């Protein structure tokens, strides 16, 4: 609650044109917002652009932010909506998973090397399998609808509550639970098929 009050005070100052106050808010939340947007877009450059746009949009809308929601759920909401819009505009283009692209010569080779560096006892076969599983999981997440993807990332990466996610996604708590269940089921099926 203290953090929320501080955010509210900073937001009010920023709404009056205090850019330093807004900078504090940006610096406080940029990493978390960027993490979710990166998870949604799987494109670091686009994620950075969308995150920037989200904060610019937030600044513009600060006079309308009256603290009905906490600042972080509000900024998440703006960022997630922009990321969803971005995905919808880009939906015809094939998703380029830069992490997959980087490891096309051998899925997970880097991960295998890292694992072996860390622990020479790691079975190379298991390490390769794990790395491949992560790639497949990323692809499975990318195949979810933007709404499902946003919900599961907000929950699993950010650990947000159902209530917070429902505020961000502007939907009911029941919808959050159902989207979460659906997304998990898809990922669980992938795990079962793989393991």
């Amino acid at each position, binding site marked *: 609650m203290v953090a929320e009050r501080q955010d509210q005070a900073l937001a009010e100052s920023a709404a009056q044109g205090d*850019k330093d106050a*807004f*900078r504090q808010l*940006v*610096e406080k939340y*940029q*990493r978390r917002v*960027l*993490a979710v947007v*990166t*998870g949604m877009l*799987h494109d*670091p*450059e686009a*994620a*950075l652009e969308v*995150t*920037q*746009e989200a*904060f*610019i949009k937030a*600044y*513009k809308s600060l006079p309308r932010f009256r603290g009905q929601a906490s600042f972080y759920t509000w900024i998440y909401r703006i960022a997630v909506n922009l990321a969803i819009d971005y995905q919808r505009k880009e939906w015809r283009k094939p998703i380029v998973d*830069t*992490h997959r692209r980087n490891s096309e010569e051998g899925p997970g080779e880097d991960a295998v090397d890292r694992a072996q560096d860390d622990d020479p006892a790691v079975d190379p076969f298991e390490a390769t399998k794990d790395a491949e*599983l*992560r*790639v497949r*999981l*990323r692809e499975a*997440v990318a195949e979810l609808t933007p709404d499902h993807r946003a919900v*599961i*990332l907000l*929950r*699993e*990466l950010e650990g947000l*509550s*159902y209530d917070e996610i429902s505020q961000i996604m502007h939907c009911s708590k029941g919808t959050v*639970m159902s989207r*979460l*269940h659906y997304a*998990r089921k898809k*990922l*669980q099926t992938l*795990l079962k098929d793989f393991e």
Partner: protein
Amino acid sequence: MNCLETASLLETFHDGELHGREMREVALHVAQCADCEDQLAVWDRVHTLLNESTPAPSGDLAALWQGVEEGIDEMSRADSGWSGFRIAAASTDIRNLWAEKETSVGGRLGASADEAESIWLRPQESAPASGSAFLRGGMALAASLFLAIFLLGDEEPALVGTSEPTGAVARSLPPKTDALLQTASTSSFRNGKSGPSGAVVLGGTGGSATAPAQQVQIRSLKQFGGEMAMWAEPAGETAVIWVGESAPQARR
């Protein structure tokens, strides 16, 4: 509590969203049930893998703020230049464009695009002409003028707008004219005030133009002679709306 009863609560339990008696009962059941415990383990695994497989945010976070700051500054510049520029344009150059409507279509289009651009790029006292947003705004204005002239065709402009309340404008139009303009807030029209106020709804079909209904915010308004020009902003675009006996229908 058995597995069947637990099933619907297990995921909520996993997410820590279950409280009180239900939470205790599910916890008790899970402690005694290998199947339910396995299910929780699968969700834990999904959680772990998702965190491991989601690309970590990369990029220069300091550069992020720099980009945000530039965006904010650009936005402020664009806002401060809005009314001064557009009202000036309304009162002079755009009216001149109307006078050109007797020229050929090609000539009109060329003239409108050129003139719009030159208007936009003209140095403004209150609007420093720099930044990509400003340029985009210029392009939007040029496009609007292009459409306005193009849609005008060879026909004489029809009566479109009055200062009637919501809906009356549409009803007062001749059947073939159709409604492109409905006022949701008409006090600005009536009083001919300039400056941001009110909102209008654009939409319908007029001549060869069809526009989906949408609400726009009035950004500036100017009356000159028997005509009135209003600049509005639907979702970042520029809309030019003409109202008056000698003006054409609403143009986008």
